[in-house]
């Protein structure tokens, strides 16, 4: 029998770093490749500085069919390796990130460019390179033209630069440059946890406050072996699903707005606010800030507010249903949505696409089902999956998820378990690695923390679903009309700051 190459854990689990066998870099890469061939997804890949300085690579892979996670670690002292991107495209951004942040060299990487235009981690005094100032992939030819959009956009959205290579109206290639909002959150979290850590976590992506806060809190609870009371877990799930409801509703409205379909655009814009107000009823913040706390939640719900919430939820859900129904009954909408921005299942698999975008392309990937943690271990959600992968599928899936989440929240609210809403979080275990996955409304949020000998964060790695999915948007745009870009973009609706960290 060969000795194990990895340690198996699960969502919300933790492993002693010493138990993870350090593999020579060749074996580390071969093991990753083999696991990915077997159907694993790369959730996270990062460099972990060891005592004294040398780096080792750590990878967290998800085996969705088994509901397990595998942690791999290389021997310390890695500086270069033959790039894995060629055989395993889903690590392409991780390798670029390692190269940018730590000066490591994935040799033969086909497109080794900066990810966030951040100065290398070891040279703290270095001035930050100007974001987006770099060569882009170019298509040469007589009738080919280049269109650059951003970083300043016409709408109220985040900064990012898109570079289109077009032939007439057809997009041959699209490249994206982000990093304008790089704040260095991962670096700021090192040395924590401290009172600011939670704030850092929940502002990783402003529209996913609950999702990221939950991922952070589950990490702390895993590292301190804290058992979260059942009532708190139910309230957390309610907050997470309300976030999903608000964002999906807003997205459906925005999709309608992008094609100039007024009725749904106007109604969903307001209804998104109604769902946000439900979250405000829960905790006083429309975006769920400071609701999820390590060990539980900050506020309890009394019976009066529960019935008020239920009543308002019911009304918002039925109004949303009506507003969205208009989309499916207008032929002019269907013709715009269908066969626009198709992401093939093959591409989705090879890029490691997560969340809604994956489910619209026929991949039943959902952390709530595959790697359940917290309340989702006891209550299963049905996960709708569509196979076409076009804008229509992504829009339709949002509506289906609205229905499911609506029912789920209603069930939870009507039968809240009794008990306290907060437990105390003790000191963190030392030299331990913990992983937490949360299915935010965009998809899988992955936080991985390693603690040092004093029980502080030695490294904190965040992977927002946008990190995987931006590449999917770029692929889906190939061969599309450039005028359909806003629609495709909105159908993915990815986060810029979640990517920039």
């Amino acid at each position, binding site marked *: 029998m060969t000795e194990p190459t990895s340690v198996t854990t699960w969502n919300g689990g933790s492993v002693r770093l010493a138990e993870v066998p350090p593999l020579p870099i060749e074996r580390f890469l071969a093991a990753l490749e083999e696991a990915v061939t077997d159907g694993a997804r790369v959730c996270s890949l990062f460099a972990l500085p060891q005592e004294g300085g040398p780096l080792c690579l750590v990878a967290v892979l998800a085996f969705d069919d088994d509901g397990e996670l595998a942690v791999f670690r290389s021997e310390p002292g890695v500086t270069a390796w033959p790039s894995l991107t060629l055989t395993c495209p889903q690590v392409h951004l991780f390798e670029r990130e390692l190269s940018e942040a730590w000066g490591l060299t994935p040799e033969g990487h086909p497109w080794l460019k900066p990810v966030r235009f951040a100065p290398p981690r070891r040279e703290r005094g270095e001035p930050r390179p100007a974001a987006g100032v770099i060569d882009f992939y170019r298509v040469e030819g007589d009738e080919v*033209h280049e*269109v650059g959009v951003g970083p300043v956009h*016409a709408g109220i959205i985040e900064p990012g630069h898109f570079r289109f290579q077009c032939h007439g109206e057809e997009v041959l290639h699209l490249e994206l440059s982000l990093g304008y909002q790089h704040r260095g959150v991962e670096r700021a979290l090192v040395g924590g946890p401290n009172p600011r850590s939670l704030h850092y976590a929940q502002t990783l992506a402003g529209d996913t406050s609950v999702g990221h806060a939950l991922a952070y809190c589950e990490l702390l609870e895993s590292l301190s072996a804290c058992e979260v009371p059942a009532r708190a877990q139910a309230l957390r799930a309610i907050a997470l699903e309300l976030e999903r409801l608000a964002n999906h509703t807003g997205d459906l409205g925005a999709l309608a707005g992008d094609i100039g379909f007024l009725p749904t655009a106007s109604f969903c814009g307001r209804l998104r606010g109604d769902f946000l107000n439900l979250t405000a009823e829960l905790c006083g913040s429309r975006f769920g800030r400071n609701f999820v706390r390590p060990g539980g939640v900050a506020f309890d719900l009394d019976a009066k507010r529960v019935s008020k919430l239920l009543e308002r939820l019911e009304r918002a859900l039925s109004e949303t249903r009506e507003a969205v129904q208009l989309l499916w009954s207008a032929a*002019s909408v269907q*013709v*715009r949505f269908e066969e626009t921005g198709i992401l093939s299942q093959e591409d989705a698999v090879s890029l490691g696409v997560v969340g809604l975008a994956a489910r619209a392309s026929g991949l039943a990937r959902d952390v709530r089902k595959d790697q359940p943690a917290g309340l989702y271990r006891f209550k299963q959600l049905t996960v709708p999956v569509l196979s076409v992968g076009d804008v229509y599928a992504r829009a339709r899936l949002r509506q289906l998820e609205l229905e499911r989440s609506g029912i789920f929240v209603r069930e939870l609210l009507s039968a809240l378990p009794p008990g306290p809403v907060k437990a105390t979080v003790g000191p963190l275990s030392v030299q331990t690695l913990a992983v937490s996955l949360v299915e935010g409304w965009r998809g899988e949020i992955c936080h991985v923390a390693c603690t040092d000998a004093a029980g502080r964060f030695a490294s904190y790695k965040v992977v927002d679903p946008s990190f995987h999915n931006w590449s999917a948007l770029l692929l889906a745009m190939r061969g599309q009309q450039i005028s*359909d870009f*806003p629609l495709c973009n909105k159908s993915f609706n990815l986060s810029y700051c979640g990517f920039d960290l």
Partner: protein
Amino acid sequence: MIEVLHTLSRLAMVSFLLRLLLHLAIAVSFPPLLLGIIGKVKAFFGGRVGPPVLQPYRDLLRLFRKGFVFSRTTTWVFRAGPVVGLITVALAMVLMPLGSHRAPLAFGGDVLVFAGLLGLGRFFTVAAALDTGSSFEGMGAAREATFSALAEPGLFLGLMVLVRHATGASLDLMLSTEGTARAWEATPGALVMVAVSFFALLLVENSRIPVDDPATHLELTMIHEVMVLDHSGPAFGLIQYGAALKLFVFASLVVNVAFPVTTGNPEADWVLFLGAVVALAMGVGVLESTMARLRLLHVPRLLVASSILSVFGIILGS
């Protein structure tokens, strides 16, 4: 109309001039109201109160009070765009009869001048857009040029139906109530086709949904709006006003064909005509509120369909 002036008595001349002034005053002051009405209808469908109907006038005032900002990369072509754009539409408006009120200026073959003026205005708008060197504006210019080339056959084919029953080849004779009423009597089916075809032209020429979305902020999807992104202040005001005037001209075109009703009383006819134009604007608002935009690739289909309708009109009318 002007050549008959010298045969008129002094009193008749004064009354003629007064009517001309009223005609021009209405044609100059009414157009922005149409934009306000469309906006109000759209707001109603969206469950909002919406800006006041007179907001477009305030917007124009605001723009005219501002200063200019010109990019250093532009030349006189960029500055000429808005001016030529407005002048050409204004001249086209002079050739257009408004209901039973004859066009202030009419001569045989002014149909070609009408189309030529619109073409010239468009040429300068496109040239001004290209002058900025922006990739967005180049894209918008390409779209505008393509679509307007496809829109022109629809206009001419439709006018061919009308000219058969008119007493001469001027817009005035073809489109004033007298001319179209006669055509309706002869071939109602053909006129329905032409009216629908002209309505499609109105949507295309004025960048309305389903062809273009005048309210969008997404520069990659725009046609007309993206071409004027770099204009500012009074120059942009000229463009906005020109756009309103163009909408009014095309609305008159549609109303002349579709609603050739006269009471015999000039004042009542004004009310009737402007009422019909307002109703048409509301129709455009309703359409915009209930329909999504076409995919850009499908816009030519709409234009070809509009031309085909006019061809059917010719067949029915012959």
